[in-house]
């Protein structure tokens, strides 16, 4: 009996295979898509005036991002009200190798519905590839312009078309320290680079180690060092030269660039200044590096890092135990600009559920939910500052939204071969003791190649 069933089943499969081989693939017509867009837009315009209404009953969106652990937990909580209201679930896929996974799935014709990208450079690359769906067709652009500064809208666009909405922002130009440790040592918060170096010398003289610096991060090792160099670049050469550097209008071997690296080297290549020496800098995971601040006696006193680092502080550390001062000015002419970054939500599959999700993330509630949990800043102007858990976060949010000079993290804007490649490995080599000119020439050689696209 089972043999007969098998036979029947097998014959069916053969028949199906033959039919599938002979069938013509149906080409998708772009015209059709546009028409659907128009129809849906009418429905959505009604929606925007009310609270988000149910337009589909159930369904799900597939989102690909780099967040795991606490970050993922906070994001899930932020999105839950959306699921409760609309019945649309979120299937979140975490991958630190996001670029690899994303490219593979796009090439395979199986992209996730949405992706959360930590780099505008990646957004541009994907938009050039044609992998992203323009969102200005269904997002209320007038409301968006009120909620976000033009700089953030530009960062989410390519070729004058909007592709992404910025969700999580971070301020990078911060130096974290323990006020209690500073008081115990009689140290004062520095306001200029020279004061900061003098403070470092003072700590060394007292027998301590001034700086916590760890740049190990697996395949991304070196990225914290690139943040240092970008912050310094803004302060020694100004934002115009910074822009030229990011766009490769000046070479990596330019004196302005070399000076920024040398400032960084003053701290990073100085064995006495950094916890664990230069070997420690290259061997310590970035998330573990601020931990010695909270030891007794402190293993190190200062840690320059973006605002997200608070979620990496040890258990039991509360907002009273730490504070941050702005990365000090170097050249008074350039003052204290803000270096920041963020995560942008982009759409790869145009589905009604994905649209609803995107629209939800453009409203304040998901921003406020994560902001209240801590370790999150929002570039959204509609988010009230009271929602942040402590004064430091509030100050950072204000700075992010209102800095006179704001620049996005440089390595995230450069092509991947540099910004996620030779720039990172260059800093690792420089810290390990390689000659700076050689390091810069190596990066320059790969830049000539990468920017010639």
């Amino acid at each position, binding site marked *: 009996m089972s*043999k007969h*069933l*098998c*036979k*029947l*089943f*097998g*014959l069916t*499969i*053969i028949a199906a295979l033959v039919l599938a081989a002979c069938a013509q693939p149906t080409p998708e017509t772009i015209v059709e898509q546009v028409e659907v867009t128009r129809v849906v837009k009418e429905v959505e315009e009604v929606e925007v005036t009310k609270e988000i209404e*149910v337009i589909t*009953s*159930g*369904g*799900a969106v597939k989102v690909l991002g780099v967040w795991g652990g606490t970050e993922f937990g906070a994001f899930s909580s932020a999105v839950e009200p959306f699921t409760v209201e609309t*019945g*649309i*679930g979120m*299937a979140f896929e975490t991958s630190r*190798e996001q*670029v*690899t996974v994303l*490219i*593979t799935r796009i090439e395979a014709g199986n992209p996730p519905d949405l992706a959360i990208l930590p780099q505008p450079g990646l957004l541009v*690359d994907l938009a050039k590839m044609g992998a992203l769906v323009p969102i200005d067709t269904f997002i209320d652009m007038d409301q968006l312009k009120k909620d976000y500064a033009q700089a953030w809208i530009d960062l989410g666009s390519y070729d004058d078309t909007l592709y992404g909405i910025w969700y999580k922002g971070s301020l990078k130009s911060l130096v974290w320290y323990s006020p209690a440790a500073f008081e115990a040592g009689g140290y004062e918060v520095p306001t200029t680079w020279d004061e900061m170096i003098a403070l470092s010398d003072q700590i060394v003289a007292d027998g301590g180690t001034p700086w916590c610096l760890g740049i190990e991060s*697996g*395949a991304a*090792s*070196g990225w914290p060092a690139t943040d240092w160099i970008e912050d310094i670049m803004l302060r020694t050469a100004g934002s115009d030269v910074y822009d030229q550097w990011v766009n490769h209008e000046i070479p990596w071997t330019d004196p302005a660039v070399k000076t920024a690296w040398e400032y960084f080297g003053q701290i990073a290549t100085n064995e006495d200044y950094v*916890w*664990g*020496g230069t*070997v*420690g800098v*290259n*061997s*310590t995971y970035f998330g573990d590096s601020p931990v010695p601040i909270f030891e007794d006696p402190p*293993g190190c006193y200062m840690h320059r890092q973006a605002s997200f680092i608070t979620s990496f502080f040890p258990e039991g550390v509360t907002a009273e135990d730490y504070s941050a001062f702005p990365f000090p000015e170097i050249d008074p002419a350039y003052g204290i600009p803000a270096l920041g970054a963020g995560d942008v939500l982009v759409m790869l599959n145009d589905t009604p559920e994905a649209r609803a999700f995107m629209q939800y993330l453009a409203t304040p509630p998901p921003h406020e939910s994560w902001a209240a949990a801590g370790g999150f800043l929002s570039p959204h102007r509609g988010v009230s500052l009271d929602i942040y858990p402590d004064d430091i976060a509030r100050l950072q949010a204000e700075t992010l939204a209102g800095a006179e000079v704001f620049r996005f993290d440089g390595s995230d804007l450069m092509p*991947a*071969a540099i910004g*996620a*490649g030779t720039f990172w*490995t260059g800093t*690792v*080599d420089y810290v*390990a003791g390689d000659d700076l000119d050689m390091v810069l020439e*190596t990066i320059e050689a790969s830049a000539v190649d*990468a920017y010639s*696209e």
Partner: protein
Amino acid sequence: MEALPASISQILNTLLAVLVGVGGVISLYVALDFLIRFLPKNVQQRIRPWIFVGPLLLILAFYLVYPTLNTIFLSFLDKRSESFVGLKNYFFAVTNPAMLTAFRNNLLWLVLLTTFSVGLGLVIAVLANRVRYETVVKSLIFLPLAISFVGASVIWRFVYAYKPADVSQIGLLNSILVNFLGLEPIGWFVEKALNNFALIAVGVWLQTGFCMVVLSAAIKSISGEVIEAARVDGANEWQLFWRIIVPMISSTIAVVATTVVINSLKAFDIVFVLTNGNRGTEVLANRMYKEMFQFRDFGRASAVAVILLVAIIPVMAVNIRRFQEQEAVR
């Protein structure tokens, strides 16, 4: 309004796929056999093997042959596979400093991994042959083979972990250095003189078990009379090893060695997880991965892949030929 949670529908999909897949393949063969019955008897005999092997050949052609040909084709195109650039990608592959470092490292892996895996495997096989607790020893040495490359790399990441001198060490090696030998801890992945060898050691740990098991079987197949006769003639253990055992199992050693050579050219996971090719540890497979997925230069990635393929083909040919010789002898 209650949508099935995504995870449950995924599980159901997977179960369905397994059922349909496994059941389907079995049914397919039963059905094919049934269809063949309609043909005349002599045709049946000739066609049957081809029909049974057919699906497999098709799959191999689709998943192995086509991608290989496609990769070779792409290696002559540019970054986005849009225009023909001739040998430019190959030129880059043999002149770029990072690529040259990768070539050097692959050579190091090839020579050192093979020498130490086969050598250690041979020594352990010979020695284990003489002790009562042979099975225990062999099981322990063989165990790492069951661990994935990535799993092994995570284990060894902790063995090589570095903490500054005045903090308690969490890495096994640095702990021995600091606590027992009173030396400074070493950044195993950072020191250019040591990091390649540290990575190759992980590979040796993984491969020795395989070498040992195969060589042990070969040693046991040497007839006891030969060994007896040699001992009677006055050979000491050293001479026994070099003049009797090794020559008699030389073809097995060749097969094992070529297999390890092929594995050494595959080295990727260990380098990727532990150092990502930083500080001069990059190998060709990592280079290919970076070019493909990080820098998104499809032409160069294909060129590196083709170079790896060309490097492996002679080794594979030797391996297969020796293996067939071996089988004929048995």
